[in-house]
């Protein structure tokens, strides 16, 4: 039995979840005290497990592996899942290391090492798919290092610069 705090859009739920040992793919879930049965039809084929049935209500689902959102027939919902037995299940972000969110070409650099920046300030422009994409500071601080130069091609996740 996992005790979780789940936020969907702006609403937070206390959720307990436990697999039904006698019915594979079925989970007994209690949301804010109300019991629900969640069935994972393709539980034996995780690569196809893109839908679930809550009581009798089917939901097609798309979600990133960090469970930070979910897309259904009706659109996208912002999600956070917190395991009450641990502090956080989300990857630790915002440590100031700015990585390329997409492969591309460094078109322009707006900051130098040692420069003070404010959170949200434009750090550089990454050109990809014929678009100029501004990369902004994740937090206020000082630029500690700049790893890339204009004209340089970067790959996904490559460290660009660091704000301290």
């Amino acid at each position, binding site marked *: 039995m*996992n005790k*979780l705090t*789940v936020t*969907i*859009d*702006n*609403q937070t*739920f206390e*959720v*307990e*979840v436990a*697999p039904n040992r006698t019915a594979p793919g079925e*989970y007994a*879930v209690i*949301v*804010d005290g*109300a019991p*629900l049965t*969640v069935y*994972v039809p393709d539980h034996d084929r*995780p690569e196809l*497990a*893109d839908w*679930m049935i*809550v009581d009798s209500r089917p*939901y097609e*689902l*798309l979600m*990133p*592996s*960090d*469970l930070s*959102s*979910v*897309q*259904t*027939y*009706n*659109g*996208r*919902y*912002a*999600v956070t*899942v917190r*395991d009450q037995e*641990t502090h956080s*299940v989300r*990857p*630790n972000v915002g440590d100031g290391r700015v990585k390329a*969110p*997409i*492969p*591309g070409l460094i078109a322009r650099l707006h900051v130098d090492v040692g420069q003070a920046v404010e959170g949200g300030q434009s750090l550089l422009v990454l050109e*990809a*798919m*014929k*678009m100029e*994409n*501004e990369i*902004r500071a994740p937090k206020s601080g000082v630029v500690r290092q700049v790893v890339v130069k204009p004209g340089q091609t970067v790959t996904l996740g490559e460290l660009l610069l660091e704000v301290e």
Partner: protein
Amino acid sequence: MFKKILIANRGEIATRITRTCREMGIETVALYTRSDRDSLHVRLASEAVQLQSPLRYAADDEILEIAQRCGADAIHPGYGFLAEEAGFIARCQQAGVVFIGPPPAVIAAVRDKLGAMERVQAAGYRVPNFIDLPDEIVEAEAMAAQAAQIGYPLIVKSARGGRGRGARVVMEPARLAEYVAAARREAMMIYGDDHVYLERAIAPSHYVVVQVLGDRFGNLVHLGEREGSLLRHNQKLIEESPAPSLDDKQRQELWRTALEVAELFGFENTGAVEFLVDGAGNFYFTEIKGRIQIEHGVSEMVTGVDIVREQIRIAAGEPLNRTQAEIPLQGWAMQCRINAEDPWNDYLPSPGRLTRFRLPQGPGVRIDSYGYVGCQIPQRFDPLLANLIVKGENRADCVARLARALGEFRVVGVETNIPLHQQIVREPSFVSGDYDTSFISRFRFDRHNRAEATRRDLAAIMAVAYALRRRIAAPVTPDQVKTGWHRSARRLPS
């Protein structure tokens, strides 16, 4: 009729053109770059040639040479790239290859955005206030002096590109120099020419265009109008036909004006005569696009006319095979541009391999895409992945159908703006048709007006997803739960 057409483009438009060529029994030559090779436009072609030049789809000399080598008797440029290059069209003519589009003189006239506005103004039609901003004006003061003649807010536009990429709205003098520099840079990058001009912004307004078809015998018809007022950063997100902002009297007047303006330029083949409509219902000519547009399918849905087929027929010297009276306008059509991008992460482009690509089906739904399961979506090009076009008997049915189709459309492997479109098509101002170019700036992301029962179900679902992932990441044993598992979970690719 042509035997073989080289399609000098990529992605959904190249695939779209290929489809009509197939139906006309015309062979096609596809072009591709290494990163683009997966695209349907290559797979469905009769022949496919890899481009060598770093100019890629803008490699005019190489492309003309390929056309001649393959024995293509015509080139279809699609939009962008070589679509409105008078010099290229002239070289095609010299080489004996038919360019599917207007003749070079017409292209030169409509691509000269300043000259076109002057000509239309002189003929007595309303145009926005505008002023040239020659290259030699680089000082902020000189720019400000020009700008002061038309007033703020104004738009910096590429003299070659017009509205669209590279255009920038300037609200106050302080930002003028900065924005002009940016616009010049982007215009150079996109169009290879940094000539810009200033135009008084009519905002908020409605962007309405009239699709026209003209043959070389002077016959000219329109296929109704489209509204494309739903823009973000000058890129249209949703287009529709008819324009909800016009009443029937305005519509008739707009059509008549569009045909008269097209005639002014001796327009031939297909194009769009573009207007801004202000809050009082006055419309202002802005430019003529001398090519097919991304959103042409919307007009095809309401008229039943295959515009690409007509382009090809006209270029082959055939007369229009219908009069205006034979072009019924029926029902209501809308298009969502589905981009491989992430609206929840600054709209960053999202290349990748499609592992799911489930198209919406059923009545009144059309998809134009180059994608399929297994296809690699390249990072180098425009993020447009698919045009989702739907038609209904009336606007309400059309909106409902669009929402339904967006819900069915499932893409895995790249992020898309489908969830953004899903929010837009449920916004009351969009549903009522009472929106203008200010829509997106007033649009609030993630408006939380959805059913609480659904949120509760999703809370249960996310809890199960969490439990499932935990099991997949590492089979749960009591030891692992208490010791190291959460660290390993963080190492999952996100």
